[in-house]
């Protein structure tokens, strides 16, 4: 490859104008040559500036209020709320002491129920959002690539598994805990013994460099790995991953971690970004 060809390949890669095979060539070059990676980075910075060349237009002034109003009522963002219950107005002072004890027990139970409901709601919301996104992606690929029958078949099979997991009343679901490496990433997990499958939905994972990938590992209560799967988040760091678990196994721990692309280890060999809290059967 001549210096001109090399420069053309890297500049075009940064501009996002390469066909898939050429882009693969560029990625190989970038992985193997640090100077190529630096050059691409430089060209990417230039490519990002090109957006500023777009003729200046302002959106309708009403859009501003629409965006802010949508943000204020956005259920995807949880904010602390205060619950104001005018208990003193409802109960006579004489009954207050006795009622407090009852209310305390009731509140503990209610909190537990609410937590379960929140977990279920979060999971269902995450599943629906991920499905919508996947359909969008498939629609895009249909337009750009024509034949997507294999991808569609895979998506349908995974969707059937997800449906089985979510519909299983015995399924176990919970939110994954972000580690200090999460940097804003969140995740949900559900596993069904009947379906022998788990679904992990992650959001806002940080981008990682060439040669690295994200992987999910499920482990039993003793820490022995049961299943693992690598995945690539989309541009927003989101992904929905379905993992088959061995029949009869009982996953107790979930780890989402960054690892080397070439590694096939089921054990986290890179930084963990999301993990399950300790669970006892």
């Amino acid at each position, binding site marked *: 490859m001549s210096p001109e060809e090399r420069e053309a390949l890297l500049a075009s890669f940064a501009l996002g104008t390469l066909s898939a095979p050429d882009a693969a060539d560029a990625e190989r070059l970038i992985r193997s040559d640090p100077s190529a990676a630096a050059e691409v980075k430089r060209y990417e910075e230039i490519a990002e*500036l090109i957006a*500023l060349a777009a003729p200046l237009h302002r959106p309708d002034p009403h859009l501003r209020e629409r965006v802010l109003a949508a943000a204020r009522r956005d259920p995807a963002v949880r904010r602390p709320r205060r619950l104001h219950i005018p208990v003193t107005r409802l109960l006579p002072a004489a009954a207050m002491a006795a009622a407090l004890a009852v209310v305390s027990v009731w509140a503990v139970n209610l909190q537990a129920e609410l937590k379960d409901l929140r977990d279920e709601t979060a999971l269902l919301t995450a599943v629906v959002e991920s499905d919508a996104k996947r359909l969008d992606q498939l629609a895009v690929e249909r337009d750009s690539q024509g034949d997507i029958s294999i991808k569609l078949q895979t998506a349908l099979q995974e969707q059937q598994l997800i449906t089985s997991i979510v519909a299983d009343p015995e399924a176990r679901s919970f939110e994954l805990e972000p580690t200090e490496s999460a940097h804003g990433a969140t995740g949900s997990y559900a596993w069904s013994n009947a379906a022998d499958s788990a679904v992990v939905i992650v959001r806002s994972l940080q981008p990682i460099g060439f040669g690295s990938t994200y992987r999910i590992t499920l482990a039993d209560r003793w820490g022995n790995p049961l299943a693992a799967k690598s995945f690539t988040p989309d541009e927003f760091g989101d992904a929905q991953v379905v993992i088959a678990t061995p029949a009869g196994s009982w996953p107790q721990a979930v780890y989402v971690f960054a690892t080397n692309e070439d590694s096939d280890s089921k054990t986290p060999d890179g930084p963990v970004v999301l993990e399950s809290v300790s669970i006892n059967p």
Partner: protein
Amino acid sequence: MTEPRLRRPGPIATTDSAPPVLPDLAAIQRPVSRVPSTTVDERRQRAEQDAVLVSALASGEVGALEQLYDRYSALVFSVALRVLHDHAIAEDVTQEVFLRIWRQPGSFDPARGKFISWISSVARNRALDEQRRLSRRRRAEDQDEDPVADLPADGRGDDPAGAAVLAEERRRVRAAMTGLPPAQRRVIELAYFGGLTQTEIAERTGDPLGTIKTRVRLGMRKLRETLADLVDDERSGGNA
């Protein structure tokens, strides 16, 4: 089991691994209107303010979203409109981009570059996705709009000093683009705003693929030379 037991590796080493500090939004009040001349320091200051505003989104500060919208809605909308050529859909994309930021502020990493670069890329990618989804890909050269024509500033921006900084960068980039030979500029615009591959550009323009590759190379190299100081500024100041 032949696999070893799980062990808990250490954290990812990043520049922002320190405990998060709640931003002081009061410290990011909109600056008073100033003479619209910008310096590297002003651009860095704006990049730092952007990073603080984005971090404020994580705690649900609508005011932070409001300020980011005032700073960048015109840019996001302009990029979307340039790609889609449809006001209504471009507004939908603009709304989607800002709500995405609202819901997932963590998807922007200040350590990897400036917010303006990131949001421009997000706007462009979402617009291209929408264009493909709706099967509305059009011949960019068929549009009656001059690719480098601009609307006059109408003074409606709510962030005059921020707008001045952005306007200066836009002026520089547009000057660099108009300074390219028309054939090179056209190829780069078809690639960036049209989302076309080199092969598709060659089919569309009727030029040999090798010619398209050369034009991309020469055009990008010229932009790199002309805009070197903006990129250097981004590298040194965007990571603040």
